[in-house]
């Protein structure tokens, strides 16, 4: 995941430039204050409204739709964390719906435009504050002495756990998170904050489940029936948790609620850039060899357009076995976890059961 070449930024349409501007400097993916992609997109759309020379509602709506589409295309190219494009799409759609309501209330276009900007700012404000609200509603679910299992890197989950750590003593177990070492990044953050953290193999999720009290994950998107789309492995984790009667919680902002209704795993929209990635080799080196050298505990693929941060020093491992070219490799970035495996969702709208997600979506899109 490289930053776009500064020399070519000016060639991008203005809305993309705004988007990149609002995303801020890419200091580190661990940075918990980093702006979420959909929030930056919403701010960029507000700029579109301000710059707009349209004289009618339809004209403004068209401009906004076009800008959303170009942001989505840009994200799908893989240059902007291709995985979260579901949240980007749903965030833009919700924003459009939110301000479209203003059109219905104020028929006069100019007065309307001022109101639109105001409402848009309000919406952006809500989205920014969403993470804190989620941390507030969710942190009480973790009690002293419990062990939390988490998977994947999510800023919302991180905010929630750090808030809980202010008042509670608990442990964290993190799944390694292949192929992008997301778990390793998360582990570094939690350890830094003083929470006892343990990293295990992805395949050890069944093994550790008996010593865990709750599972907490984030989401790329929340779909209509209350299921979630998240990093590959979440579905297996959820099934495992249900089997062991361990509650499975999801922390997600409400702009991630998407109007999708997947019926099975392959029914998900294409994930863009990351789908084309291939594992070029299988790392069969033993665990202690990939152990604690350097700041990250594991090093994954050598593919240079991978999602891992460019700042991690490469810990090359000897004893690598490569897969011959006539063997197919399938590495989708996300899977779909049906609603029946999810206990509760922590959102900025409150704590919801999966069936309440659809009610909220009906309300939001009404």
């Amino acid at each position, binding site marked *: 995941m490289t930053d776009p070449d500064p020399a070519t930024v000016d060639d991008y349409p203005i809305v993309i430039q705004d988007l990149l501007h609002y995303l801020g400097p890419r200091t580190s993916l661990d940075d918990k204050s980093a702006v979420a992609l959909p929030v930056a997109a919403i701010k960029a759309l507000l700029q579109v409204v301000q710059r707009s020379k349209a004289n009618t509602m339809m004209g403004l709506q068209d401009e906004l739709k076009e800008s959303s589409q170009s942001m989505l295309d840009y994200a799908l190219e893989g240059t902007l964390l291709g995985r979260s494009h579901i949240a980007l799409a749903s965030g833009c759609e919700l924003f459009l719906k939110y301000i479209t309501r203003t059109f219905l209330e104020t028929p006069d276009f100019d007065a309307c435009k001022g109101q639109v900007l105001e409402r848009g700012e309000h919406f952006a404000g809500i989205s920014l504050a969403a993470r804190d609200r989620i941390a507030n509603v969710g942190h009480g679910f973790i009690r002293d002495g419990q062990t939390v299992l988490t998977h994947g890197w999510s800023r919302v989950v991180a905010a929630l756990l750090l808030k809980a750590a202010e008042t509670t003593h608990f442990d964290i177990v993190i799944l390694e998170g292949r192929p992008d070492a997301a778990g390793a990044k998360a582990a570094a953050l939690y350890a830094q904050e003083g929470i006892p953290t343990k990293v295990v193999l992805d395949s050890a999720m069944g093994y550790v489940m008996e010593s865990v009290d709750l599972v907490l994950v984030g989401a790329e998107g929340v779909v209509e*029936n209350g299921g979630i789309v998240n990093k590959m492995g979440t579905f297996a984790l959820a099934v495992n948790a249900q089997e062991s009667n361990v509650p499975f919680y999801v922390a997600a902002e409400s702009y991630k609620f998407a109007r999708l209704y997947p*019926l099975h795993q392959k029914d998900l929209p294409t994930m863009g850039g990351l789908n084309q990635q291939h594992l070029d080799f299988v790392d069969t080196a033993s665990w202690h060899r990939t152990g604690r050298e350097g700041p990250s505990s594991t090093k994954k693929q050598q593919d240079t357009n991978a999602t891992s941060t460019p700042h991690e020093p490469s810990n090359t491992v000897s004893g690598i076995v490569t897969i011959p070219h006539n063997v197919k490799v399938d590495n989708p970035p996300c899977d779909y976890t049906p609603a029946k495996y999810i206990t509760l969702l922590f959102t900025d709208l409150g704590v919801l059961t999966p*069936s309440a997600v*659809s009610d909220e979506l*009906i309300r939001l899109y009404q």
Partner: protein
Amino acid sequence: QQQQQQQQQQSKKEESQKDAHPPSKTKSESIFSHLPPARDMDEYEEGFSGASLGTKQQHKDLHPRVLELGLLYASGQIRGGNARCRAMLECFSDVLEDYQPPQDCRDIRAHLDQHILKPSFSYWAEDCRPHSVSMGNAFTFLKSAVASLDRDMSLEEIITVLQETTKAYVQERLDFADQVISDFASTKIVDGDVILTYAHSSVVESLLKSAASSEKKFRVVVADSRPLLEGKTLLKSLREAGIECCYILLNSLSYIMQDVTKVFLGASALMSDGSVLSRVGTACVALLAQSSNKTVLVCCETYKMSNRVQLESITGNELGSPQFVVSKDLQGFRDQKNLMLLNLLYDLTPSNVVSGIVTEMGILPPTSVAVL
């Protein structure tokens, strides 16, 4: 003399009771005794000519179109929630054309309600065939449309407005809804799919045809059951559209289920907890599909949603004529006092078996029906 009078009164009462509920031989001790017994065609043969159906005193004022439609309902020539509702609204539209309130009528709306709407509907529901939820909801809509008319409107205005309102209702909540449902559901059909459907649902028929016309490669399995064998009409219609089809009866369902990828079902009504009231046999199909991990999608327009909650198939159902269940060995069933032939028309599919409900508002989980 008093005794004679009493006897006369009693026999009159019995006569009227006999008229109200034709004495078909469904045994009264059964658990289905709360449902109105079916019109047994053999018993009531002359009763099925239109003139006889309208021979009672209170029916003399009914418009001939109403009687005609009643006959079509009773004989089963018009079946299906959408078809019955459409026919009903068309009939009311025609009746309004000829409507003339009496000269001294002060409130046309009340007269219309009491002399046209109510009598016609109760005639259909009580003497011909119990009404479906779709008909009930449409009738409620029509009554509220009449009630919301201006008191001072002229007769011509009232007739025009009502006719336009019913036309708009049919267009929006039936035709347009069907189109939107077809569009949503077609997005879920992918190349290589094997779609299972049961009996004949007009919505499922139109969605399969629209998916076929958008060049998707799939095939359909039509499951069917006695006595109505409605799947045959669906099969014919799909073959005319060039869709590859397979036809089975319910007993082959478990065999065919391994090849099936998706199940599309229609509904007569949607309860507010998400359970689906549909042609008897639908619950079997849905249950078997779910236990084999196949997706079950129920296609239903929002006007068919009911405020009721039903927990099982017995409390709210309809009895069909038992003679349709008869095979040659059971010819003498009427004379056997311990034998009851049951011909139920509907059953209830619980909401946990349904993967999603396709309405014109989108695809929803069953638990969200109440929100609509």
